[in-house]
């Protein structure tokens, strides 16, 4: 890749400095108390892995960001929109794919994607083009006209991801996506959004997301315990897994890390800019 490619331009220091945060979370809390005033800022183009203790808290935050769950307090903005301020813009600028696909099993993949495009307000011609493109890229062209339910969870999950990407959203929120798809295919599909799109990925199996993300964040006791560039784990000789991320958080608060890794300078906020 040369420096003249869009990715290189997009990631250049000058452009990075001008870009606002894609996701801005301030003081968000829930009634259940699993989030107790969380603050998180994800720069445009970052690919963030979100893990938590307990494991389902990251899911709660992603569901709140997607607008399917409500916070008890705090402020949120994604892709320049305040939380659920403008439904139209939200549907176009933010994509969400969760563990429950939410797609009617009697729809065919082509119908489901056409419906997603229509609901998002895309023009008919543009929508048809995008649907065909998505079917090809997701590798469900063979099942395009069969009910999704007959293809089983892998087809349903691929269609859910394709529907989330049909509007080419600025931010993709993913919560345990494509768990029924084989790992190599899953990795291929999760890199489809491209390097310029912001990704927030909640996962209970961080090790399986290595190479897909460039930032990690840990929510512990309802608050953000760590948010760092992936490189920082390597710099501190920490493994890319749940224990490594927890050890990083321990180091941040001056607690002895569980893994006994050597300490290294903590990343500044500027280090969290996407590369």
């Amino acid at each position: 890749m040369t420096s003249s490619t869009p990715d290189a331009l997009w990631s250049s220091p000058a452009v990075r400095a001008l870009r606002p945060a894609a996701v801005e979370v301030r003081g968000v809390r829930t009634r259940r108390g699993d989030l107790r005033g969380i603050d998180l800022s994800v720069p445009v183009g970052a690919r963030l892995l979100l893990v938590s203790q307990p494991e389902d808290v990251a899911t709660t935050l992603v569901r709140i960001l997607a607008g399917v769950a409500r916070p008890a307090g705090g402020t949120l903005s994604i892709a320049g929109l305040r939380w659920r301020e403008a439904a139209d813009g939200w549907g176009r600028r933010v994509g969400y794919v969760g563990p429950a696909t939410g797609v009617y099993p009697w729809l065919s993949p082509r119908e489901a994607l056409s419906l997603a495009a229509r609901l998002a307000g895309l023009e008919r011609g543009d929508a048809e083009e995008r649907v065909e493109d998505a079917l090809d890229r997701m590798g469900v062209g063979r099942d395009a006209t069969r009910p999704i339910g007959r293809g089983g969870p892998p087809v349903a999950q691929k269609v859910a991801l394709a529907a989330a990407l049909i509007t080419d959203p600025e931010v993709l929120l993913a919560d345990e996506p494509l768990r029924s798809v084989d790992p190599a295919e899953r990795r291929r599909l999760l890199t489809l959004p491209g390097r310029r799109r912001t990704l927030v990925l909640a996962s209970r199996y961080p090790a399986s997301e290595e190479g897909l993300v460039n930032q990690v964040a840990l929510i512990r006791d309802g608050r953000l315990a760590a948010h760092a560039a992936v490189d920082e784990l390597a710099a501190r000789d920490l493994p890319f897994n749940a224990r490594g991320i927890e050890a990083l958080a321990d180091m941040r608060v001056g607690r002895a890390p569980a893994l006994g890794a050597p300490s290294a300078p903590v990343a500044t906020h500027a280090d969290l800019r996407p590369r």
Partner: protein
Amino acid sequence: MSRFVTLTGLALRELWISFRLLGVVGALLLAGMPAALLPHVLTPDLAGAPPDPLTWLAAALGAALALASGLAAATMATERRRGTAGWMAVRGVGRPTIVLAWFAAFAVLLVVGLVPTALLAWLALGVAVLPAGPLPLAASIAAAGCAGLAGIAVGLLSGSILAPWAAAAATAFPVGAVLVSTALGFSGWSTLPASGIGVLATLDTAARPLADAVRGAGAALATAAVALLLAVMGFDRAEL
């Protein structure tokens, strides 16, 4: 508007594929059967008293509308639970649109079920029971349908906040109790939401059935509007 139409079509298709459409329309058609059959098969000895076909029709219609309300409640709760409502919401569809689309889909079901029911009842009863002609019967069945719409709006409200079975039970039993008891013992207050059913039950003796049916329909539609507003508010706060 186009999203509302799209979602209503999708809701109707879901109701058709899951056999709920057939269940509701079938129940409404069955409600017309007592009027057609019972006067001929039940004798005073068997039933204890001469069966009044209009009361039977109204009571059966009340039960069928309660079933439709319970199904609406279970449907709304299931849509929330399995993530299909969430799938719509993240596409940028407003939550009120989702509730209104489901209401419209169930309203279509009521119309599709009640038209043949009214026809069946008129063919079975005819001028022998209804000397004033078919118009009062049509008006009172329409008013009963409006009471059903109020029941469906209540169902959507409970489906927005409760689990599927709880929502279905919390809707079908109270709505059924109100509608069936109105059919069996109508007080004559035509300004109550369920009074369409009562007007239908007393159609052969009512002095002003048309006016009573219109008043009952108005009261039922006002109740439906309030329940629908509460359902939208409840759904807006719900986790999808």
